């Protein structure tokens, strides 16, 4: 590559010198910018790409920085940007002239002041004069359409003759197999002109008739004018997206208030939900199965709302509660429980791809991410209206706050935008910025709108009516936003950022112990020693590039980072991940094909057009506040639909829309569109209250259905998409661990403060890996276990924990032998069974009662007679096996009970909620 480069440069320089030497006459004294232009225009497309320009200028002395004569690529980039007055990412001859008019290697490069008029720079997108464009529209475009597009348009999608497309500006200038069709300003060099003049038989176009001479003259004049062409290069070779047509997709239609359907079996429905479900079933000739018994129902609803099994007392109280309000009483108690937020918060954390490390290439700790986790849990517990919940996550920092506490919470909420996976070793700052922005757009639009807007980063969305412009309109909002994710400047981390300081009276916990004077001293001493060693290495000339040097630097920066996270008195600083406003002065451009060195047209900041009726104008700030308002506007057709579908899916196991993160045209269509709209409408009418929605759903008769089999229904609908029964579900990874802890009496229900990763502090995440299986040591609820990207703990990963790199609306459910192995052999499972056995044995009463209690605790029901018998037989026979294995007789009873309890923990009925 390098060799190729220098050969090329040499060629250019030779050509240039021959040119200056060989020219005679008055022109000799002046440079010919057009000639130079053609030399640099390596691919003869009639314009200079950034690459072509930089290739050339990297040898031109005038653009080498002064000082020590070092190359200054930045200056070159700057020069290109200033010359490229229409911001199309290319230099036309006209744009190049002020540069090319300078004799290479001589004099100072002066910019044409008029061309860099700041007003023009800001609006840019003015490739030609108004007259020029008018000329094109009047005289040129109609002819192109009528005479040429038949063979030279990419819109038809069929074969393009001669590789030439004339339906875009880019296509015209680029030309086809024979070369550029148009060289602006040079009719004689333009193949298009040659073709329509019919002078060359092989080139004559249109082939069967010569165009009217007047028309040919128009074209010549047009080329002389510089071939003004308002058509946008970025939209090349592709049918424009028809936004209006796009609105016809069901999900982009306004949410309706559907009429209640009529049903035959009027006795069955309890709520409106039931009527919609029953109407669909009846239309298929099906009817729902019977209701679940009370024990099944209370176990189901307790797992669904709290992620925990009900206690024996709770079950018995409900079973014996004969009042009409028995069901409501249970639901209200569960909704008031602080564990509701832990359960539903975790669902949202799946969607928000919550994790405490960066993932990707270099996995760095995010030691303050847990504040966002706690904020989410609290929000669900407080039943923060969902629209407010969204607004705070997008623009909390811009919302009014009544107190220091609220202010801090609003800041923490914006952690939603900051905790995403990032490739911290990306060297190019703009690339890194655009990647972060992309991740923010991706997560925001999938999580809240169920749209994959980030598919439009490199091109118009292939399936949904989302042009690339829309993507960059949103990108502009995030580019005017500073993402505060922290991290320290160690090797492989190129762009550390500040964090958000929280005020001291915010009431936020530190999550870490104070740093004692002694600890501080020890760190300082350690730092001194390391720096000394670093100095020695420097003297030896081994500091850079040596493994030791690198390692020293990591140690020093990590320790420094640790010191920096405390104030002078050793109090932990209160910091949060999140975002804040940033001044963004550059033009908000579309990057063609997503490539940061191909800036295209300038687009105003805005939202997704297909969801926007009124044009938006963002005049102040980043536009996040406007974005938050737009996302939660009552007429936004997606936000409410997407959220009610999520809640439905969390309760019933699968959404009414089977692709909860994709409501676009490649997503699935709703099984019950009217029910979806009914729920969305009700949700908004009830103040976006998630708790009211949950209450409404779980008190429906549909939710109360048994999970039993029906041959007729199964034949028609094995996946139960029509809800003829309740679907059985395997418990999620967290619920399995929590339930094991709960039934063995070991569960610590008080939430821990902070996080294990928070206490490790900034640095590489491998420190986390060294902590070993924390999940087996601590006894708090699984939602508080640290989440490190790509280092998911076994106990969670085995049971399909959500991948925190992406938005996960519905988790997978696999059933593989590695899960069985975990339940058979993992020390945590065995120890829990052992504890459970010990507690059971310590109780007064006989084995019959113990077995009964075991079933009640684990399955919320009493054992049948057969099950009693089965367990009793095991209690009698298993010690015989132990005897053969040489287990001391004294221990046999305990070991037998442990085995019995463990079998219970591994049983399908324990692992499923029916």
């Amino acid at each position, binding site marked *: *590559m390098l060799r190729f480069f220098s050969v090329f440069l040499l060629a250019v320089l030779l050509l240039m010198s021959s040119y200056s030497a060989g020219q005679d006459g008055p022109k000799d004294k002046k440079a010919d910018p057009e000639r130079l232009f053609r030399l640099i225009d*390596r691919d003869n*497309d009639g314009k200079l790409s950034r690459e072509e320009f930089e290739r050339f200028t990297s040898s031109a002395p005038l653009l080498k920085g002064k000082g020590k004569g070092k190359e200054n690529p930045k200056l070159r980039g700057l020069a290109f940007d200033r010359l490229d007055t229409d911001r199309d990412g290319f230099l036309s001859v006209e744009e190049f002239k002020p540069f090319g008019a300078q004799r290479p290697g001589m004099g100072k490069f002066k910019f044409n002041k008029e061309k860099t008029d700041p007003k023009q720079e800001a609006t840019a997108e003015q490739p030609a004069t108004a007259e020029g464009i008018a000329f094109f529209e009047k005289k040129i475009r109609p002819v192109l359409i009528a005479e040429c597009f038949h063979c030279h348009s*990419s819109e038809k999608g069929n074969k*393009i003759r001669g*590789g*030439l*497309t004339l339906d875009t500006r880019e*296509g015209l200038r680029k030309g086809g*197999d024979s070369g550029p069709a148009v060289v602006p300003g040079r009719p004689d060099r333009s193949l298009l002109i040659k073709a329509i003049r019919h002078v060359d038989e092989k080139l004559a176009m249109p082939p069967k008739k010569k165009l009217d001479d007047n028309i040919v003259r128009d074209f010549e004049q047009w080329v002389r004018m510089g071939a003004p062409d308002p058509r946008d290069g970025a939209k*090349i*070779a592709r049918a424009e997206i028809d936004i209006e047509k796009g609105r016809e997709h069901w999900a982009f239609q306004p949410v309706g208030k559907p009429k209640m359907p009529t049903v035959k079996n009027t006795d069955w429905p309890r709520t409106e939900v039931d009527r919609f479900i029953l109407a669909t079933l009846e239309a298929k000739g099906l009817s729902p199965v019977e209701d679940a018994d009370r024990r099944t129902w209370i176990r189901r609803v307790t797992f669904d709302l709290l992620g925990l099994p009900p206690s024996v007392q709770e079950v018995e109280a409900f079973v014996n509660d004969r009042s009409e309000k028995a069901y409501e009483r249970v639901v209200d108690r569960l909704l008031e429980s602080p564990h509701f937020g832990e359960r539903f918060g975790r669902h949202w954390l799946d969607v928000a791809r919550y994790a405490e490390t960066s993932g990707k290439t270099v996995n760095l700790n995010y030691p303050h991410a847990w504040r966002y986790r706690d904020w989410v849990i609290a929000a669900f517990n407080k039943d923060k209206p969902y629209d407010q919940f969204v607004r705070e996550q997008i623009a909390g920092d811009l919302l009014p706050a009544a107190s220091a506490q609220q202010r801090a919470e609003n800041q923490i909420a914006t952690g939603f935008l900051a905790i995403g996976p990032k490739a911290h070793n990306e060297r190019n700052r703009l690339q890194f910025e655009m990647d972060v922005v992309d991740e923010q757009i991706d997560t925001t639009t999938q999580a809240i709108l169920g749209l994959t807007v980030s598919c439009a980063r*490199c*091109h118009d969305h*292939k399936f949904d009516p989302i042009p690339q412009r829309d993507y960059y309109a949103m990108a502009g909002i995030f580019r005017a936003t500073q993402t505060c994710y922290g991290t320290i400047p160690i090797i492989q981390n190129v762009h550390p950022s500040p964090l958000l300081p929280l005020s001291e009276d915010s009431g936020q916990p530190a999550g870490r112990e104070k740093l004692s004077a002694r600890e501080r001293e020890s760190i300082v001493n350690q730092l001194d020693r390391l720096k000394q060693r670093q100095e020695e290495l420097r003297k030896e000339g081994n500091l850079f590039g040596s493994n030791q040097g690198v390692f020293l630097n990591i140690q020093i920066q990590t320790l420094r980072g640790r010191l920096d996270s405390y104030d002078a008195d050793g109090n932990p600083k209160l910091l949060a991940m999140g975002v804040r406003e940033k001044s963004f002065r550059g033009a908000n451009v579309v990057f063609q*094909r997503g*490539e940061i*060195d191909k800036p295209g047209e300038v687009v105003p900041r805005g939202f997704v057009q297909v969801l926007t009726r009124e044009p938006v104008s963002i005049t102040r700030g980043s536009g996040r506040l406007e974005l938050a308002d737009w996302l939660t506007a009552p007429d936004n057709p997606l936000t409410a639909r997407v959220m009610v579908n999520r809640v439905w899916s969390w309760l019933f196991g699968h959404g009414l829309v089977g692709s909860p993160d994709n409501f676009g045209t*490649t997503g699935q269509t709703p099984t019950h569109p009217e029910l979806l709209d009914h729920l969305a409408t009700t949700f908004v009418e009830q103040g976006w209250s998630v708790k009211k929605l949950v209450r409404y759903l779980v008190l429906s008769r549909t939710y109360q259905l048994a999970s*039993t*089999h029906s041959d007729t229904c199964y*034949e*028609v*609908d*094995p*996946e139960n998409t029509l809800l003829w029964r309740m679907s*059985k579900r*395997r418990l999620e990874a967290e619920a399995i661990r929590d339930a094991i802890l709960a039934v063995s009496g070991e569960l610590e229900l008080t939430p821990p403060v902070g996080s294990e990763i928070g206490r490790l502090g900034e640095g590489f995440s491998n420190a986390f890996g060294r902590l070993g299986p924390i999940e087996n040591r601590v006894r708090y609820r699984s939602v508080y276990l640290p989440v490190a990207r*790509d*280092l998911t703990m076994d106990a969670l990963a085995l049971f399909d924990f959500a*991948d925190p*790199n992406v938005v996960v609306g519905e988790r*997978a459910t*696999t*059933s*593989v*032998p*590695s*899960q*069985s*192995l*975990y339940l*058979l*052999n*993992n020390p945590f499972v*065995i120890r829990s069974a052992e504890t459970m056995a010990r507690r059971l044995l310590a109780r007064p009463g006989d084995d019959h009662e113990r077995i009964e209690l075991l079933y009640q605790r684990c399955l919320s029901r009493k054992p049948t007679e*057969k099950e009693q018998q*089965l367990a009793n*037989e*095991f209690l009698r*026979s298993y010690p015989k*096996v*132990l005897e053969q*294995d040489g287990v001391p007789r004294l221990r046999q009873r305990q070991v037998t009970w442990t*085995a019995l309890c463990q*079998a219970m923990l*591994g*049983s*399908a*009925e324990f692992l499923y909620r029916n």
Partner: protein
Amino acid sequence: MLSFSRRMFLQTTASGFGYLAFAGLATQAAERATNPLSPKPTHFPARAKRVIFLCMEGGPSHVDTFDYKPRLAKDDGRPIGKGRVPFAKLLASPWKFKQHGSSGLWISELFPEVAKQADQLCLLHGMHTDLPNHPQAFQQMHTGSFQFRRPSLGAWTLYGLGTENDQLPGFVTISPPNQNGGPVNYGSAFLPAIYQGTRIGSIGRSLREASVSNLKNPRSSTKAQRAQLDLLQAMNRAALERDRVNPAIEGVIESYELAFRMQGELPEVLNLDKESATTRKLYGVGEDGMDNFARQCLMARRLVEAGVRFVEICQGGWDHHRNLQETLTRSARSVDRPIAGLLTDLKSRGLLDDTLVIWGGEFGRTPYAQLSDGRDHNNKGYTLWMAGGGVKGGLSYGKTDDHGYEAVDGKIHIHDWHATILHLLGLDHEKLTFRHAGRDFRLTDVKGHVVREILA
């Protein structure tokens, strides 16, 4: 039919809770008879008995590796003139191609070791798939569908053939990606859960640390564990009996049995220390930049040798939009010697004749440049290759246009590729069906043609 008899069995043994009476050999023998993993007759004689799928996640560039395009070098820098971005400039491959073996296959210098195996390779240049997006294309490659959840290729294979060693899972996937569909790519969808792939490790994590965890009980003897498992399974059967139809519990029951058996043999099979230093070296175990995939390849050989039907191993990071020269070199190096080692080793053990090795990613890359040193996704034409069991070695089949942009000759859609793989395994893709939701499903949906030209 299969699931019906299995269901009958699973339920009848449960009646009366006579687990003690049935426990031990009688139960286990009876269970083996209806074990869904038992070997099954093929539709016609098989050319390959097992599969190793070398999955290159991200979409390796075909024009820089196995699809030699001299015109591309000539037209470097010129606009491609067709497709979605006709003005995009062609990018000559920075790597040199040479002919290799007596077959004279063209292979680039990125794969010096694999090139030595040229006469074993059957290059399929006419591949194409529906979409140039990772998640869709990756899932289509694995399941035939990107819209719906369908059983994976490995699951269909296992369903069709059963396995030769019921002490091991019949379908193992090593280091699969979490993204691009994650478990869907080795899932069983509506097929019984037992046909799902058993995952070892995950992408991005070193295989050195990864293994199937919890393979040994720290306390119980095998006999004691069996007695405990009998109780557990009796409880599961009771639940199944109550539910009458519950594929999930069937899955749990079978998964426990397999797990129990795996404890015996799997630790042994996964232990690469059992291999000689020469063999480890052949694969590149312990070598910088290739150790991880070398381990995968060696593990794959040990697994198929032990009777596992379908092994998929995966190397990610082939999505070379930028820094092609540096990153593609690194990617190729990470797999070149391990793959060559695997082919050599299989051959010397006489396994290559009936082991089908398939290589490739979800799509190829554009012959034109993205930035100056990168390539974009290309679903219209790319190269996958096969080796071993029943395919013609040293064959270059099908072709793309002059620049490698789209397949023009010997076109093979993913459905055709699936049909061909099943055919080599002795399965008729139109007959390998499973009844679900009132209709028969196939891996190839209603499509797919066996590419007979490549059959040996």
